[in-house]
Protein backbone atom coordinates (compact mmCIF):
# COMPACT_ATOMS: atom_id res chain seq x y z
CA UNK A 1 0.00 0.00 0.00
CA UNK A 2 2.74 2.45 0.98
CA UNK A 3 5.45 3.55 -1.39
CA UNK A 4 8.93 4.95 -0.94
CA UNK A 5 11.47 5.85 -3.61
CA UNK A 6 14.97 7.30 -3.57
CA UNK A 7 17.25 8.39 -6.44
CA UNK A 8 20.88 9.40 -5.92
CA UNK A 9 22.50 11.93 -8.25
CA UNK A 10 26.06 13.19 -8.41
CA UNK A 11 25.75 15.62 -5.54
CA UNK A 12 22.19 15.17 -4.23
CA UNK A 13 19.64 12.55 -3.24
CA UNK A 14 15.99 12.84 -4.23
CA UNK A 15 13.44 10.99 -2.10
CA UNK A 16 9.67 10.71 -2.22
CA UNK A 17 7.02 8.99 -0.11
CA UNK A 18 3.26 8.74 -0.43
CA UNK A 19 1.17 10.67 2.10
CA UNK A 20 -1.68 8.31 2.90
CA UNK A 21 -2.15 6.91 6.41
CA UNK A 22 -4.61 4.04 6.07
CA UNK A 23 -6.38 1.67 8.42
CA UNK A 24 -7.76 -1.40 6.60
CA UNK A 25 -9.90 0.08 3.81
CA UNK A 26 -10.13 3.64 5.14
CA UNK A 27 -7.71 6.50 4.43
CA UNK A 28 -7.45 8.15 7.83
CA UNK A 29 -5.08 10.91 6.79
CA UNK A 30 -4.13 12.37 3.39
CA UNK A 31 -1.16 14.48 4.43
CA UNK A 32 0.84 12.07 6.57
CA UNK A 33 4.59 12.67 6.48
CA UNK A 34 6.60 9.43 6.44
CA UNK A 35 10.00 11.13 6.42
CA UNK A 36 11.93 11.61 9.64
CA UNK A 37 14.74 14.13 9.83
CA UNK A 38 17.66 12.48 11.61
CA UNK A 39 19.96 15.45 11.23
CA UNK A 40 20.48 18.48 9.00
CA UNK A 41 21.48 16.30 6.05
CA UNK A 42 20.01 12.89 6.78
CA UNK A 43 16.42 11.79 6.15
CA UNK A 44 14.88 8.47 7.02
CA UNK A 45 11.77 7.27 5.19
CA UNK A 46 9.91 4.62 7.12
CA UNK A 47 6.96 2.36 6.24
CA UNK A 48 5.68 -0.89 7.66
CA UNK A 49 3.53 -2.01 10.55
CA UNK A 50 1.40 0.63 12.22
CA UNK A 51 3.00 1.89 15.38
CA UNK A 52 6.33 0.18 14.76
CA UNK A 53 7.23 2.77 12.10
CA UNK A 54 6.86 5.86 14.25
CA UNK A 55 8.20 4.15 17.38
CA UNK A 56 11.37 2.87 15.68
CA UNK A 57 11.95 5.98 13.59
CA UNK A 58 11.61 8.32 16.55
CA UNK A 59 13.92 6.12 18.62
CA UNK A 60 16.62 6.31 15.93
CA UNK A 61 15.98 10.03 15.43
CA UNK A 62 16.42 10.87 19.11
CA UNK A 63 19.51 8.71 19.46
CA UNK A 64 21.21 10.36 16.48
CA UNK A 65 20.46 13.74 18.04
CA UNK A 66 21.77 12.53 21.40
CA UNK A 67 25.03 11.48 19.71
CA UNK A 68 25.40 15.00 18.38
CA UNK A 69 24.74 16.49 21.81
CA UNK A 70 27.25 14.21 23.53
CA UNK A 71 30.03 14.37 20.96
CA UNK A 72 29.57 17.76 19.34
CA UNK A 73 29.39 16.52 15.74
CA UNK A 74 26.77 14.72 13.69
CA UNK A 75 26.78 11.11 12.58
CA UNK A 76 27.58 10.57 8.92
CA UNK A 77 24.87 8.92 6.77
CA UNK A 78 26.91 5.69 6.65
CA UNK A 79 27.25 5.61 10.42
CA UNK A 80 23.56 6.42 10.92
CA UNK A 81 22.57 3.68 8.50
CA UNK A 82 24.71 1.09 10.22
CA UNK A 83 23.47 2.20 13.63
CA UNK A 84 19.89 1.80 12.42
CA UNK A 85 20.67 -1.61 10.98
CA UNK A 86 22.25 -2.78 14.21
CA UNK A 87 19.19 -1.76 16.21
CA UNK A 88 16.83 -3.45 13.79
CA UNK A 89 18.96 -6.61 13.86
CA UNK A 90 19.09 -6.62 17.66
CA UNK A 91 15.31 -6.61 17.89
CA UNK A 92 14.87 -9.06 15.02
CA UNK A 93 15.19 -12.21 17.11
CA UNK A 94 13.50 -10.77 20.17
CA UNK A 95 9.83 -11.22 20.95
CA UNK A 96 9.09 -7.70 19.72
CA UNK A 97 10.74 -7.30 16.33
CA UNK A 98 10.08 -4.09 14.43
CA UNK A 99 8.44 -4.72 11.10
CA UNK A 100 9.66 -1.63 9.22
CA UNK A 101 11.12 -0.99 5.77
CA UNK A 102 13.40 2.01 5.47
CA UNK A 103 15.21 4.23 3.05
CA UNK A 104 17.97 6.34 4.54
CA UNK A 105 19.21 9.26 2.44
CA UNK A 106 21.95 11.67 3.34
CA UNK A 107 24.73 13.96 2.22
CA UNK A 108 28.20 13.73 3.69
CA UNK A 109 30.79 16.49 3.21
CA UNK A 110 33.56 14.00 2.47
CA UNK A 111 31.77 11.03 0.95
CA UNK A 112 29.06 12.87 -0.97
CA UNK A 113 25.45 11.76 -1.34
CA UNK A 114 24.34 8.34 -0.11
CA UNK A 115 21.15 6.30 -0.33
CA UNK A 116 20.71 3.18 1.79
CA UNK A 117 18.02 0.54 1.40
CA UNK A 118 17.03 -1.39 4.54
CA UNK A 119 14.27 -3.90 5.00
CA UNK A 120 12.55 -5.47 7.98
CA UNK A 121 15.07 -8.32 8.08
CA UNK A 122 17.70 -5.61 8.68
CA UNK A 123 19.40 -6.14 5.34
CA UNK A 124 21.35 -3.01 4.47
CA UNK A 125 22.51 -2.05 0.97
CA UNK A 126 23.90 1.19 -0.41
CA UNK A 127 22.21 1.72 -3.76
CA UNK A 128 22.00 4.38 -6.49
CA UNK A 129 18.21 4.08 -6.48
CA UNK A 130 15.73 2.10 -4.41
CA UNK A 131 12.02 1.70 -3.70
CA UNK A 132 9.78 0.02 -1.14
CA UNK A 133 6.23 -1.23 -1.33
CA UNK A 134 4.10 -2.88 -4.02
CA UNK A 135 4.85 0.12 -6.20
CA UNK A 136 8.48 -0.95 -6.27
CA UNK A 137 7.59 -3.92 -8.51
CA UNK A 138 6.28 -1.50 -11.09
CA UNK A 139 8.96 1.19 -10.89
CA UNK A 140 12.31 -0.54 -10.34
CA UNK A 141 12.69 -1.47 -14.00
CA UNK A 142 11.98 2.13 -15.03
CA UNK A 143 14.81 3.15 -12.75
CA UNK A 144 17.02 0.38 -14.16
CA UNK A 145 16.40 1.56 -17.70
CA UNK A 146 16.60 5.33 -17.41
CA UNK A 147 18.92 5.97 -14.48
CA UNK A 148 22.33 7.52 -15.10
CA UNK A 149 24.87 8.21 -12.33
CA UNK A 150 25.32 11.82 -13.48
CA UNK A 151 21.68 12.85 -13.32
CA UNK A 152 20.96 16.51 -12.83
CA UNK A 153 18.31 17.61 -10.35
CA UNK A 154 15.73 18.25 -13.07
CA UNK A 155 16.41 14.92 -14.74
CA UNK A 156 15.98 13.13 -11.42
CA UNK A 157 12.63 14.85 -10.86
CA UNK A 158 11.57 13.82 -14.38
CA UNK A 159 12.57 10.23 -13.63
CA UNK A 160 10.57 10.37 -10.41
CA UNK A 161 7.55 11.71 -12.29
CA UNK A 162 7.86 8.84 -14.75
CA UNK A 163 7.71 6.36 -11.90
CA UNK A 164 4.68 8.04 -10.33
CA UNK A 165 2.93 8.16 -13.72
CA UNK A 166 3.43 4.42 -14.03
CA UNK A 167 1.92 3.87 -10.59
CA UNK A 168 -1.05 6.00 -11.53
CA UNK A 169 -1.52 3.98 -14.67
CA UNK A 170 -0.99 0.43 -13.45
CA UNK A 171 -1.22 0.22 -9.69
CA UNK A 172 -4.72 -0.72 -8.52
CA UNK A 173 -4.52 1.36 -5.36
CA UNK A 174 -4.73 5.10 -5.69
CA UNK A 175 -1.82 7.05 -4.21
CA UNK A 176 -2.92 10.58 -4.94
CA UNK A 177 -0.10 12.61 -3.44
CA UNK A 178 3.58 12.33 -2.58
CA UNK A 179 5.99 14.30 -0.42
CA UNK A 180 9.20 15.01 -2.33
CA UNK A 181 12.45 16.18 -0.72
CA UNK A 182 15.95 16.80 -1.99
CA UNK A 183 19.12 16.53 0.10
CA UNK A 184 22.34 18.19 -1.01
CA UNK A 185 25.22 20.11 0.53
CA UNK A 186 22.82 22.85 1.56
CA UNK A 187 20.61 20.53 3.57
CA UNK A 188 17.10 19.18 3.13
CA UNK A 189 14.77 21.01 0.79
CA UNK A 190 11.05 20.44 0.29
CA UNK A 191 10.15 20.18 -3.35
CA UNK A 192 6.72 20.67 -4.84
CA UNK A 193 4.25 17.96 -3.82
CA UNK A 194 3.48 15.54 -6.64
CA UNK A 195 1.21 15.10 -8.54
CA UNK A 196 0.95 18.82 -9.15
CA UNK A 197 -2.55 19.98 -8.28
CA UNK A 198 -4.00 22.77 -10.38
Amino acid at each position, binding site marked *: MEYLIGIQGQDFVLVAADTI*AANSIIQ*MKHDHDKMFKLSEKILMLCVGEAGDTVQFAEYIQKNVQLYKMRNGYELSPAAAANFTRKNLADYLRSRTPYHVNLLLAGYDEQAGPALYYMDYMSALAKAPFAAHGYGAFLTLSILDRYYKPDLTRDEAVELLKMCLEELKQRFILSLPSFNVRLIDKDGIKDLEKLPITA
Partner: protein
Amino acid sequence: MALQDICRQPHTPAFPLSRKWNDPISLALDGGDTNTVLGRGGFATLPFYMPLTANTGFKKPPLRPRTPHPAPPNQIPKRAAVAVPFELAHGTTTLSFKFQGGVIAAADTRSSCAGYVECPTAEKVIPIHSHLVGTTSGTSADCMLWKRILSRECRLYQLRNKVPLTVKGTAKLLSAALSPFKGTELCVAATLCGWDRTGPSLHYVYSDGTRLEGQLFSVGSGSPYAYSVLDREYRFDMSVPEAYALARNAVYHATHRDAYSGGCVDLYHVTECGWRKIGRDNLLPVYYEKKGGGEVRGF
Protein backbone atom coordinates in the same frame (compact mmCIF):
# COMPACT_ATOMS: atom_id res chain seq x y z
CA MET B 1 -6.68 25.81 48.30
CA ALA B 2 -3.51 23.92 49.19
CA LEU B 3 -3.26 22.23 45.81
CA GLN B 4 -3.70 25.52 44.03
CA ASP B 5 -0.84 26.95 46.06
CA ILE B 6 1.46 24.05 45.12
CA CYS B 7 0.66 24.53 41.49
CA ARG B 8 1.02 28.30 41.83
CA GLN B 9 -2.44 28.85 40.41
CA PRO B 10 -4.26 32.12 40.98
CA HIS B 11 -7.08 32.08 43.48
CA THR B 12 -9.57 33.66 41.12
CA PRO B 13 -11.65 31.07 39.31
CA ALA B 14 -10.33 30.38 35.82
CA PHE B 15 -13.69 29.95 34.15
CA PRO B 16 -16.41 32.55 34.21
CA LEU B 17 -18.43 30.24 36.43
CA SER B 18 -20.63 31.65 39.08
CA ARG B 19 -23.38 29.05 39.00
CA LYS B 20 -23.98 26.47 41.66
CA TRP B 21 -24.49 22.89 40.64
CA ASN B 22 -28.22 22.97 41.14
CA ASP B 23 -28.90 26.23 39.29
CA PRO B 24 -31.60 25.63 36.70
CA ILE B 25 -29.93 26.15 33.36
CA SER B 26 -31.62 25.62 30.04
CA LEU B 27 -29.52 24.13 27.34
CA ALA B 28 -30.48 25.25 23.86
CA LEU B 29 -30.29 22.46 21.34
CA ASP B 30 -28.47 24.50 18.76
CA GLY B 31 -26.02 27.32 19.23
CA GLY B 32 -25.71 27.34 22.95
CA ASP B 33 -23.69 29.37 25.30
CA THR B 34 -20.00 28.63 24.99
CA ASN B 35 -19.10 30.83 27.92
CA THR B 36 -20.30 28.49 30.61
CA VAL B 37 -18.65 25.20 31.38
CA LEU B 38 -20.97 22.43 32.48
CA GLY B 39 -20.33 18.84 33.26
CA ARG B 40 -22.08 16.34 35.42
CA GLY B 41 -23.51 18.30 38.32
CA GLY B 42 -22.59 21.62 36.74
CA PHE B 43 -18.81 21.53 37.16
CA ALA B 44 -16.20 20.06 34.88
CA THR B 45 -15.03 16.84 36.49
CA LEU B 46 -11.38 17.84 36.95
CA PRO B 47 -11.09 21.61 36.80
CA PHE B 48 -7.69 22.45 35.39
CA TYR B 49 -6.42 25.95 34.99
CA MET B 50 -5.54 26.55 31.35
CA PRO B 51 -3.20 29.53 31.13
CA LEU B 52 -4.16 31.45 28.03
CA THR B 53 -0.62 32.66 27.50
CA ALA B 54 1.99 30.10 26.60
CA ASN B 55 4.81 31.43 28.79
CA THR B 56 4.54 30.24 32.37
CA GLY B 57 8.16 30.95 33.27
CA PHE B 58 8.90 27.43 34.54
CA LYS B 59 12.10 25.58 33.81
CA LYS B 60 12.01 22.77 31.28
CA PRO B 61 12.39 19.26 32.72
CA PRO B 62 15.92 17.79 32.39
CA LEU B 63 16.79 15.54 29.45
CA ARG B 64 16.67 11.92 30.46
CA PRO B 65 18.72 9.35 28.51
CA ARG B 66 16.46 7.08 26.51
CA THR B 67 16.42 3.37 26.99
CA PRO B 68 15.62 1.02 24.13
CA HIS B 69 12.09 -0.15 23.55
CA PRO B 70 11.41 -2.21 26.67
CA ALA B 71 10.16 -5.78 26.57
CA PRO B 72 6.55 -6.07 27.73
CA PRO B 73 6.31 -6.59 31.49
CA ASN B 74 5.50 -10.00 32.95
CA GLN B 75 6.37 -11.70 29.66
CA ILE B 76 2.85 -11.45 28.24
CA PRO B 77 2.60 -14.14 25.52
CA LYS B 78 1.64 -13.12 21.99
CA ARG B 79 -1.60 -15.11 22.12
CA ALA B 80 -3.90 -15.08 25.15
CA ALA B 81 -3.52 -18.31 27.09
CA VAL B 82 -7.08 -18.18 28.42
CA ALA B 83 -10.06 -17.93 26.06
CA VAL B 84 -12.30 -14.96 26.79
CA PRO B 85 -15.59 -16.12 28.33
CA PHE B 86 -17.64 -14.01 25.92
CA GLU B 87 -16.90 -11.77 23.01
CA LEU B 88 -15.82 -8.33 24.06
CA ALA B 89 -17.87 -5.37 22.82
CA HIS B 90 -16.48 -3.85 19.63
CA GLY B 91 -19.06 -2.24 17.42
CA THR B 92 -19.48 1.47 17.49
CA THR B 93 -19.58 4.70 15.54
CA THR B 94 -17.63 7.62 16.92
CA LEU B 95 -16.51 10.73 15.13
CA SER B 96 -14.72 13.95 15.93
CA PHE B 97 -13.62 16.97 13.95
CA LYS B 98 -12.00 20.36 14.38
CA PHE B 99 -13.64 23.45 12.99
CA GLN B 100 -13.55 27.19 13.52
CA GLY B 101 -15.64 26.93 16.69
CA GLY B 102 -13.56 24.29 18.47
CA VAL B 103 -13.71 20.51 18.44
CA ILE B 104 -16.83 18.36 18.15
CA ALA B 105 -17.03 14.79 19.43
CA ALA B 106 -20.03 12.56 18.78
CA ALA B 107 -20.79 8.89 19.31
CA ASP B 108 -23.64 6.42 19.28
CA THR B 109 -24.68 4.68 22.50
CA ARG B 110 -25.08 1.03 21.58
CA SER B 111 -22.76 -1.36 23.37
CA SER B 112 -22.94 -4.67 21.50
CA CYS B 113 -21.58 -8.03 22.54
CA ALA B 114 -21.64 -11.20 20.43
CA GLY B 115 -24.81 -10.26 18.58
CA TYR B 116 -26.69 -8.86 21.58
CA VAL B 117 -27.19 -5.24 22.49
CA GLU B 118 -25.50 -5.33 25.84
CA CYS B 119 -26.39 -1.75 26.73
CA PRO B 120 -28.46 0.66 24.62
CA THR B 121 -27.40 3.71 26.62
CA ALA B 122 -23.65 3.44 26.94
CA GLU B 123 -21.36 6.46 27.20
CA LYS B 124 -18.73 6.38 24.52
CA VAL B 125 -17.44 9.90 24.90
CA ILE B 126 -15.55 10.09 28.17
CA PRO B 127 -14.27 13.33 29.68
CA ILE B 128 -10.64 13.10 30.72
CA HIS B 129 -10.21 16.53 32.17
CA SER B 130 -11.83 19.92 31.89
CA HIS B 131 -10.46 20.54 28.40
CA LEU B 132 -10.22 17.05 26.96
CA VAL B 133 -12.73 14.41 26.00
CA GLY B 134 -11.96 11.06 24.46
CA THR B 135 -14.16 9.04 22.15
CA THR B 136 -13.86 5.31 22.72
CA SER B 137 -14.03 2.46 20.28
CA GLY B 138 -12.89 -1.14 20.44
CA THR B 139 -13.41 -3.01 23.66
CA SER B 140 -15.49 -0.74 25.91
CA ALA B 141 -14.01 -2.10 29.14
CA ASP B 142 -10.47 -1.50 27.91
CA CYS B 143 -11.34 2.00 26.76
CA MET B 144 -12.95 2.99 30.04
CA LEU B 145 -10.05 1.68 32.07
CA TRP B 146 -7.39 3.35 29.97
CA LYS B 147 -9.27 6.62 29.95
CA ARG B 148 -9.34 6.61 33.73
CA ILE B 149 -5.64 5.81 33.79
CA LEU B 150 -5.07 8.65 31.34
CA SER B 151 -7.00 11.07 33.59
CA ARG B 152 -4.79 10.11 36.49
CA GLU B 153 -1.58 10.43 34.49
CA CYS B 154 -2.60 13.83 33.06
CA ARG B 155 -3.28 15.09 36.56
CA LEU B 156 0.02 13.73 37.88
CA TYR B 157 1.88 15.34 35.00
CA GLN B 158 0.29 18.67 35.76
CA LEU B 159 1.11 18.44 39.45
CA ARG B 160 4.71 17.40 38.81
CA ASN B 161 5.51 19.77 35.97
CA LYS B 162 3.13 22.64 36.75
CA VAL B 163 2.11 22.84 33.09
CA PRO B 164 -0.84 20.90 31.70
CA LEU B 165 -0.04 18.29 29.07
CA THR B 166 -0.97 19.25 25.53
CA VAL B 167 -3.36 16.97 23.68
CA LYS B 168 -0.45 15.79 21.54
CA GLY B 169 1.44 14.88 24.68
CA THR B 170 -1.58 13.10 26.10
CA ALA B 171 -1.89 11.09 22.90
CA LYS B 172 1.77 10.11 23.08
CA LEU B 173 1.34 9.18 26.75
CA LEU B 174 -1.63 6.95 25.95
CA SER B 175 0.17 5.39 23.00
CA ALA B 176 3.23 4.66 25.12
CA ALA B 177 1.10 3.17 27.89
CA LEU B 178 -0.63 0.86 25.41
CA SER B 179 2.49 -0.22 23.54
CA PRO B 180 3.47 -3.11 25.88
CA PHE B 181 0.14 -4.69 25.03
CA LYS B 182 0.64 -4.68 21.31
CA GLY B 183 -0.21 -8.07 19.84
CA THR B 184 -2.59 -8.97 22.69
CA GLU B 185 -6.37 -8.81 22.64
CA LEU B 186 -6.41 -5.29 24.02
CA CYS B 187 -8.27 -3.04 21.61
CA VAL B 188 -8.51 0.69 22.24
CA ALA B 189 -9.18 3.09 19.37
CA ALA B 190 -9.63 6.54 20.83
CA THR B 191 -9.69 10.06 19.53
CA LEU B 192 -8.57 12.70 21.99
CA CYS B 193 -10.44 15.95 21.37
CA GLY B 194 -9.23 18.86 23.36
CA TRP B 195 -8.14 22.43 23.68
CA ASP B 196 -4.66 23.19 24.97
CA ARG B 197 -2.21 26.07 24.84
CA THR B 198 -1.77 25.45 21.10
CA GLY B 199 -5.51 25.76 20.41
CA PRO B 200 -7.99 23.07 19.32
CA SER B 201 -6.36 19.68 18.92
CA LEU B 202 -7.47 16.28 17.69
CA HIS B 203 -5.44 13.08 17.88
CA TYR B 204 -6.26 9.47 17.03
CA VAL B 205 -4.64 6.72 19.09
CA TYR B 206 -4.96 3.01 18.38
CA SER B 207 -3.65 0.19 20.52
CA ASP B 208 -1.62 -1.19 17.59
CA GLY B 209 0.58 1.90 17.97
CA THR B 210 -0.92 4.23 15.36
CA ARG B 211 -0.99 7.83 16.49
CA LEU B 212 -2.26 10.46 14.04
CA GLU B 213 -3.08 14.13 14.22
CA GLY B 214 -5.84 15.42 11.98
CA GLN B 215 -8.88 17.54 11.30
CA LEU B 216 -11.48 14.79 11.07
CA PHE B 217 -11.61 11.22 12.35
CA SER B 218 -14.26 8.56 12.56
CA VAL B 219 -13.60 5.28 14.33
CA GLY B 220 -15.50 2.04 14.71
CA SER B 221 -17.50 -0.44 12.70
CA GLY B 222 -19.83 2.32 11.50
CA SER B 223 -17.01 4.68 10.57
CA PRO B 224 -17.07 4.19 6.77
CA TYR B 225 -20.72 5.23 6.71
CA ALA B 226 -20.00 8.24 8.90
CA TYR B 227 -16.93 9.22 6.86
CA SER B 228 -18.91 9.37 3.64
CA VAL B 229 -21.52 11.73 5.09
CA LEU B 230 -18.88 13.84 6.85
CA ASP B 231 -16.63 14.14 3.79
CA ARG B 232 -19.50 15.45 1.66
CA GLU B 233 -20.39 18.31 3.98
CA TYR B 234 -17.41 19.07 6.23
CA ARG B 235 -15.88 22.56 6.00
CA PHE B 236 -13.57 24.16 8.51
CA ASP B 237 -15.58 27.38 8.55
CA MET B 238 -18.93 25.79 9.45
CA SER B 239 -21.07 27.55 12.00
CA VAL B 240 -21.67 25.90 15.36
CA PRO B 241 -25.27 24.76 14.61
CA GLU B 242 -24.10 23.38 11.25
CA ALA B 243 -21.35 21.44 12.98
CA TYR B 244 -23.80 19.98 15.52
CA ALA B 245 -26.20 18.99 12.73
CA LEU B 246 -23.40 17.41 10.66
CA ALA B 247 -22.11 15.36 13.59
CA ARG B 248 -25.58 14.11 14.50
CA ASN B 249 -26.42 13.31 10.88
CA ALA B 250 -23.22 11.36 10.32
CA VAL B 251 -23.84 9.21 13.41
CA TYR B 252 -27.48 8.79 12.41
CA HIS B 253 -26.58 7.47 8.96
CA ALA B 254 -23.98 5.16 10.40
CA THR B 255 -26.39 3.74 12.97
CA HIS B 256 -28.91 3.12 10.21
CA ARG B 257 -26.53 1.02 8.14
CA ASP B 258 -24.30 -0.56 10.77
CA ALA B 259 -25.90 -3.28 12.88
CA TYR B 260 -23.50 -2.72 15.76
CA SER B 261 -24.28 0.99 16.14
CA GLY B 262 -27.52 2.51 17.32
CA GLY B 263 -29.44 3.97 20.20
CA CYS B 264 -28.86 7.66 20.74
CA VAL B 265 -26.21 10.13 19.67
CA ASP B 266 -24.09 11.90 22.29
CA LEU B 267 -22.69 15.24 21.25
CA TYR B 268 -19.83 17.09 22.97
CA HIS B 269 -18.29 20.42 22.09
CA VAL B 270 -14.82 21.45 23.29
CA THR B 271 -13.87 25.11 23.29
CA GLU B 272 -11.35 27.34 25.00
CA CYS B 273 -13.48 27.27 28.14
CA GLY B 274 -13.67 23.49 28.32
CA TRP B 275 -15.95 20.71 27.17
CA ARG B 276 -19.70 20.78 27.24
CA LYS B 277 -22.20 17.99 26.56
CA ILE B 278 -24.67 19.38 24.08
CA GLY B 279 -27.13 16.53 24.46
CA ARG B 280 -28.18 12.99 23.83
CA ASP B 281 -30.76 12.50 21.06
CA ASN B 282 -32.68 9.33 20.41
CA LEU B 283 -32.19 8.29 16.78
CA LEU B 284 -35.13 5.94 16.34
CA PRO B 285 -37.82 8.62 15.98
CA VAL B 286 -35.48 10.53 13.65
CA TYR B 287 -35.57 7.65 11.17
CA TYR B 288 -39.36 7.57 11.11
CA GLU B 289 -39.61 11.36 10.82
CA LYS B 290 -37.21 11.42 7.88
CA LYS B 291 -38.93 8.45 6.28
CA GLY B 292 -42.19 10.30 6.52
CA GLY B 293 -40.55 13.16 4.63
CA GLY B 294 -40.35 15.45 7.65
CA GLU B 295 -37.54 17.76 8.71
CA VAL B 296 -35.96 16.97 12.05
CA ARG B 297 -34.72 19.94 14.08
CA GLY B 298 -31.01 19.62 14.85
CA PHE B 299 -30.37 17.08 12.05
